[in-house]
């Protein structure tokens, strides 16, 4: 029983941390978006993601017991304990990177949630059911921007292709099943990453074709974010994300 809970908590972190770190990256743009309208759109997405994280972490805290709360899970882990993929921690180099990162995540996130809706774990199924509409809109938003930039001016096309060339090799990590994900999938709680990958590559193909973008042929980046091994980017993210709780432990407002 305890072992099962351990895997489940672990799985919740894998699910939640992608949204947490991507939500944080988007929050960095609050007040800095390229236009008022895009600024608020990205902030909305960020808040949607944080909302999902809260549900996952409240559940994880409940399973963990003791002093754990959604906040301690979000704010008080060390870098090796974060379980997100490398894609979502990539920096906001320019708007094309923001959109590329968002699209490459949304195209994975939606089919993931579509499976989790049928999870044998009622909580996960409920969170997925709530998140799925948000995610559907995120994908609609990011793919329409992919098309607009990819099929836009020469410069926007060039920037979009550059961003995609950089980001695409990180997408393979989504589908490298960790031990936890295998256990959860076999238990009927977690998703089947193989079938998601088929959907994913098809979405990429369709949107890239419309956006006049080429699918990069670069080999996959060998990354182990889901096992807690991250790029140097995470240090900077955590320095900002955790600053208040590190400087003023247990502060509230």
């Amino acid at each position: 029983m305890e072992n099962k809970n351990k895997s489940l908590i672990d799985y919740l972190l894998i699910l939640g941390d992608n949204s947490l770190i991507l939500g944080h990256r988007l929050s960095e743009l609050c007040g800095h978006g390229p236009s008022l309208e895009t600024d608020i759109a990205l902030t909305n997405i960020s808040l949607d993601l944080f909302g999902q994280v809260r549900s996952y972490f409240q559940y994880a805290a409940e399973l963990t017991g003791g002093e754990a709360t959604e906040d301690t899970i979000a704010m008080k882990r060390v870098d090796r304990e974060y379980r997100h993929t490398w894609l979502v921690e990539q920096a906001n180099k320019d708007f094309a990177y923001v959109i590329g990162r968002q699209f490459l995540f949304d195209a994975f996130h939606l089919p993931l949630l579509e499976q989790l809706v049928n999870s044998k774990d009622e909580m996960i199924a409920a969170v997925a059911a709530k998140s799925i509409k948000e995610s559907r809109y995120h994908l609609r938003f990011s793919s329409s921007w992919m098309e607009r930039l990819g099929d836009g001016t020469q410069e926007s096309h060039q920037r979009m292709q550059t961003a995609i060339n950089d980001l695409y090799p990180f997408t393979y990590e989504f589908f490298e099943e960790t031990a936890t994900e295998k256990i959860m999938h076999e238990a009927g709680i977690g998703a089947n990453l193989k079938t998601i990958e088929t959907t994913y590559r098809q979405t990429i193909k369709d949107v890239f074709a419309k956006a006049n973008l080429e699918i990069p042929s670069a080999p996959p980046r060998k990354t182990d974010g889901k096992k807690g091994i991250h790029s140097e980017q995470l240090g900077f993210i955590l320095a900002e994300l955790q600053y208040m709780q590190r400087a003023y432990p247990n502060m509230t407002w």
Partner: protein
Amino acid sequence: MQKNERKKKEPQKQANLFTNYTIITNQYNMKGNPIWEVFIRSKNGLEHRHVGSLHAEDAKMAMENARDVYTRRQEGVSIWVVESKHITASNPSENGEMFDPAKDKAYRHPTFYDLPDELEHI
């Protein structure tokens, strides 16, 4: 004499207002995006009402921006967007002939009927 001068200035002021107005409705932002007017139906059965405007490159983007800017607090169940240049506005300097003649025609209001007491909200 001074009074007359002031009277002469007034129409000019109105003309300026009008000029500003036409500029606004055809304005583009720094990135060359046209302005769109946004109409929201707050719930089924009610009419769409004008809620504001925004910049967008195309209709799809205008729709997404309208959703993100104007319905994030559950303000609506339906959105219309229309590019501002498609709206023909009345000219404020013609307000006199447009609207003043209705002022003294109280008989156009349906207030001369005897209504039964049971009728409410009329």
